[in-house]
C-alpha cells in the first residue's frame, strides 16, 4: 500500500520536474557569471584550473563553509560516538603479508600523491578535498593492514585546528590588507601555469588538504574503534 502511494506521488512530482527539464536545453552554451569566470579567470587569478579558481577564490566563502561542514561532521560524529561503550570492536583479523607489504610500500606513495593533488590544485584537476580524501584512504589502508593501528587523535585534531585557523586567518589577512575577506591579491598572483601562481589559492588548498585529510582520518578512526584515550 505504502509502496503504491509512494510511487504514485513520486511519479507526479517526477512528471512535473521532467516537464521542467524538458524546457532546459541540454548541452547548449551558458550565459551569466560563468562567462566572467571563464573569460577573466586567468587574468584575475593566474590559476589554470578554473574550477579551483571558483572554489577557492570567487566562491571561497562557500569553501570555508564546506570545510566547516566537514569539521562539523567530524566533531559531531566523534561527539556522538564518544563514550559509546556498546560498540563492538572490529574483529580485526591479522591481515596477509601481501597486504602489509603493499601497505608499507604504498602508504608513503599515497601520502605523496595526496599532497601532490592538493598542491597542484590550481593547475591540474583535484585540490584540497580530493587530496585530503586520498590521504585519508591511505590511513584507511593502515587500519586494514595493522591490527593494533590507532591514530593519534591529539595530533590529528591539532592539525585540523591549525589548518582551519590558517584558512580563516588567511581570510582575515585579506580583510586587513586588501579590504576584503578572503581576498586573493594579498600576495602577487605570479605567472599562469606555474606552481607558485594563483596568489593564495595553493596555500588555502594546502590548508584544506591537511584539514580534510586529518578530519576524514579522524572520522574513519572514530567509526572503526571506540577511542579510549579520548
Amino acid at each position, binding site marked *: 500500500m*505504502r*509502496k503504491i502511494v*509512494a*510511487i504514485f506521488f*513520486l511519479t507526479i*512530482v*517526477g512528471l512535473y*520536474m*521532467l516537464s521542467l*527539464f524538458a524546457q*532546459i536545453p*541540454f*548541452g*547548449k*552554451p*551558458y550565459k551569466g*557569471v*560563468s*562567462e566572467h*569566470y*571563464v*573569460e*577573466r*579567470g*586567468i*587574468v584575475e587569478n593566474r590559476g*589554470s*584550473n*578554473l*574550477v579551483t*579558481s*571558483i*572554489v577557492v577564490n570567487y*566562491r571561497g566563502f*562557500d*569553501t570555508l*563553509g*564546506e570545510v566547516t*561542514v*566537514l569539521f*562539523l*561532521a*567530524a566533531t*559531531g*560524529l566523534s561527539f*556522538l*560516538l564518544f563514550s*559509546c561503550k*556498546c*560498540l563492538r570492536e572490529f574483529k580485526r583479523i591479522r591481515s596477509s603479508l601481501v597486504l602489509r607489504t603493499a601497505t608499507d610500500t604504498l602508504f608513503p606513495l599515497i601520502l605523496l600523491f595526496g599532497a601532490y593533488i592538493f598542491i597542484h590544485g590550481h*593547475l*591540474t*584537476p583535484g*585540490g584540497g*578535498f580530493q587530496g585530503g580524501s586520498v590521504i585519508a584512504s591511505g590511513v584507511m589502508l593502515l587500519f586494514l593492514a595493522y591490527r593494533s593501528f590507532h591514530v593519534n587523535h591529539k595530533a590529528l585534531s591539532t592539525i585540523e585546528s591549525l589548518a582551519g585557523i590558517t584558512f580563516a586567518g588567511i581570510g582575515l589577512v585579506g580583510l586587513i590588507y586588501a579590504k576584503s575577506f578572503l581576498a586573493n591579491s594579498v600576495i602577487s598572483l605570479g605567472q*599562469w*601555469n606555474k606552481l607558485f601562481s594563483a596568489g593564495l589559492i595553493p596555500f588555502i588548498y594546502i590548508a584544506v588538504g591537511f584539514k580534510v585529510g586529518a578530519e576524514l582520518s579522524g*572520522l574513519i578512526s*572514530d*567509526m572503526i574503534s571506540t577511542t579510549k584515550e579520548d
Partner: protein
Amino acid sequence: MVFFAASLLLIFIGLYAALVKRNLIKIIIGLSIMDTGVNMLIISLGFVKGRTAPIISLKDLFKKGSLLVDVSKVVDPLPQALVLTAIVIGVAVTAMALSVVIRMYSVKKSIEIDDFKELKW
C-alpha cells in the same frame, strides 16, 4: 537529455527508498543515491557539447594576444564548483546519519523503523 532523465530517475529511486524502506541504513543509502543523482544533474546542466574541461593548461584556449579565455571553448565551470561542495556536504551528512544509526543500534539493538516510533501524536 539522457543524463537529465537518468539523474532524475536516480533521485527518485533514492527518494523511493527513503519513503518505503523500513531499514535505517537502507534509507541512508537511498539518500546517498539521491545525492549522486542531484550531483549528476547539476553537472549535466553545465555541460556543453564539444567543449573542453575548464582547465586551461594550453595556450590555444586563449583569445589572441591576451590572457582572456575564449568562452566558447570551455564548459561551464560553476556547476562543477558547486558540485564539489555538494559532494563534501553529502558525505558529511551521511557520516552524521550513520553515527546516529550506530548509536540507535546501541540503544535498542535494532535498526528497523518500527522500533523507533515512540515519539508521536
